[in-house]
């Protein structure tokens, strides 16, 4: 079960479905400690990416028809589209993350080492842009454990599925772990102590994103 452009595209399409389905949940989290638009921002952004993918693949979305493509192409399209449609803090952050990820995945298919590199690069991009460190109650708190868990799983010889599962599980745990934190970056930081007790919306959407990567693979190999 290889991680190729077809998988990457399924990943992004699944993410679009997921954020659309969880829009109100993300919105509510952002309403608690932000400005209530995170759900809408991501729905708008990933809907636009899907539109671009459809346009490229033909309306039926029959990806097979398109012949061999690079994983990085899909991620790059995702990056530029998110940057130009999301707005808000999460737009440049996810955009930069996918841009960096694309740089290290310019192949027809990627192995577990490339998956780890992809996640590392994504986190690096987010940190370069947003200057957040772990514990500041941001999406970094989901990406950081995800990267570590992926590297761990890979070093233990896990396959692509195992590596992605480890990353997704760690991201979900990391998102939950943001609940008690007091935000020191982003809009939530304006609340000071009042930001504690709420899960960070960006950390949650990160968990959804990586969860979709696992589902896309399962779906593929099904």
């Amino acid at each position, binding site marked *: 079960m290889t991680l190729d452009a077809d998988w990457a595209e399924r990943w992004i399409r699944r993410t679009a479905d997921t954020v659309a389905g969880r829009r109100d949940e993300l919105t509510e989290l952002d309403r608690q400690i932000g*400005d209530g*638009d995170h759900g809408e*921002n991501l729905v708008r952004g990933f809907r636009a990416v899907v539109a671009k993918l459809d346009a490229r693949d033909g309306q039926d979305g029959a990806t097979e028809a398109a012949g061999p493509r690079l994983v990085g192409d899909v991620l790059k399209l995702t990056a530029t589209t998110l940057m130009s*449609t999301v*707005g*808000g*803090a999460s737009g*440049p952050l996810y955009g930069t993350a996918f841009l960096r990820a694309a740089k290290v995945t310019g192949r027809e298919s990627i192995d577990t080492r490339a998956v780890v590199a992809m996640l590392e690069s994504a986190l690096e991009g987010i940190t370069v842009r947003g200057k957040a460190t772990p514990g500041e109650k941001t999406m970094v708190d989901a990406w950081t454990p995800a990267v570590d868990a992926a590297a761990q799983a890979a070093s233990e010889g896990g396959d692509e599925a195992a590596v992605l599962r480890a990353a997704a599980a760690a991201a979900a745990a990391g998102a939950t772990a943001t609940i008690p934190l007091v935000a020191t970056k982003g809009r939530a930081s*304006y609340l000071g102590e009042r930001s504690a007790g709420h899960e960070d919306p960006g950390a949650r959407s990160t968990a959804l994103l990586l969860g979709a990567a696992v589902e896309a693979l399962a779906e593929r190999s099904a």
Partner: protein
Amino acid sequence: MGEDGYVAKEGGSVKKLLNDPANAVADSLAGFALAHADIIQVHHDPAYVTRVGGATTGKVGLVSGGGAGHEPLHTGFVGDGMLDVAVPGAVFTSPTPDQILPALQAADGGAGVLAIVKNYTGDVLNFDLAVELAETEGLDVATVLVNDDVAVEDSTYTAGRRGVAGTLCVEKIAGAAAQQGGDLADVTGVAHRVVDNVRSMGVAVTACTVPHVGAPSFDLPGDQLEIGIGIHGEPGRRRVKAVPADEVTQMLLDPVADDLELSAGERVLLFVNGMGGTPASELYVVYGRARRLLEQRGVTVARSLVGSYVTSLEMQGASVTVLRLDDELAALWDAPVHTAALRW
């Protein structure tokens, strides 16, 4: 989703005079363009608002932008003596680089462009990306971050102070400096002087409801006030039981005046801003009290502005902004301005 904008939902009533909330910003811009065709032009996809005639050759271009929902900021301030271009994002969401880049280009009259950015992570990151791109295309861009909101401690524990109503002062005064022929360094310098000398703090009496969200941006009990709010419906720093306007005003004015370290004999501009849903009559009650408090400090209110200029949709509430004046800043404030929302 087409209905969210104007029918009641459980989350609270979101009845609004809108069509499909997904098109709220575009619909509003279309009407704005028709109503003020003598002053501005609206460019769609990507959306930005320019002065009729566009960039003035040889004049420093002024660009500002941010999430929609703060009208008349920024679109209502495009015109002679103020902004050349305004870039509205979605409601409460910063514009994207692909909007900001052409906006910067549209403002360039060959003398460079000053980008006035409210200090929010989203606005900062998106403007940063756009400015990087503009510079690679050879555009000369300076950026000034507005961070006048004293409700937020300016520390490593926050994303830094937010830009709120003081942004109007930066746009008006820098706009006048550019109109009078200052070069990019001059105009940027003046803008920084305003930022250094302006502070604000706001209170919410009611929350606001983002059309596509459908629930109030925060839940404020009927007998409470939210002190230290931003302009995106973010909750404030603390809640207090509702008290008379004189007390509320003091909770806003004192931190502002203290942070500015105003001393007796100084001259200031006093700007009482409505959040969108507050009647003018209440703003004047706040203004009267704020002015008395300043005079008790021996501070002279030399200029005044009262009205709803930097808003949060239909939120009821107000903010108090004080700008320390010197002769140059006062003269630039008095300079003619001809925009949809500010004119003298």
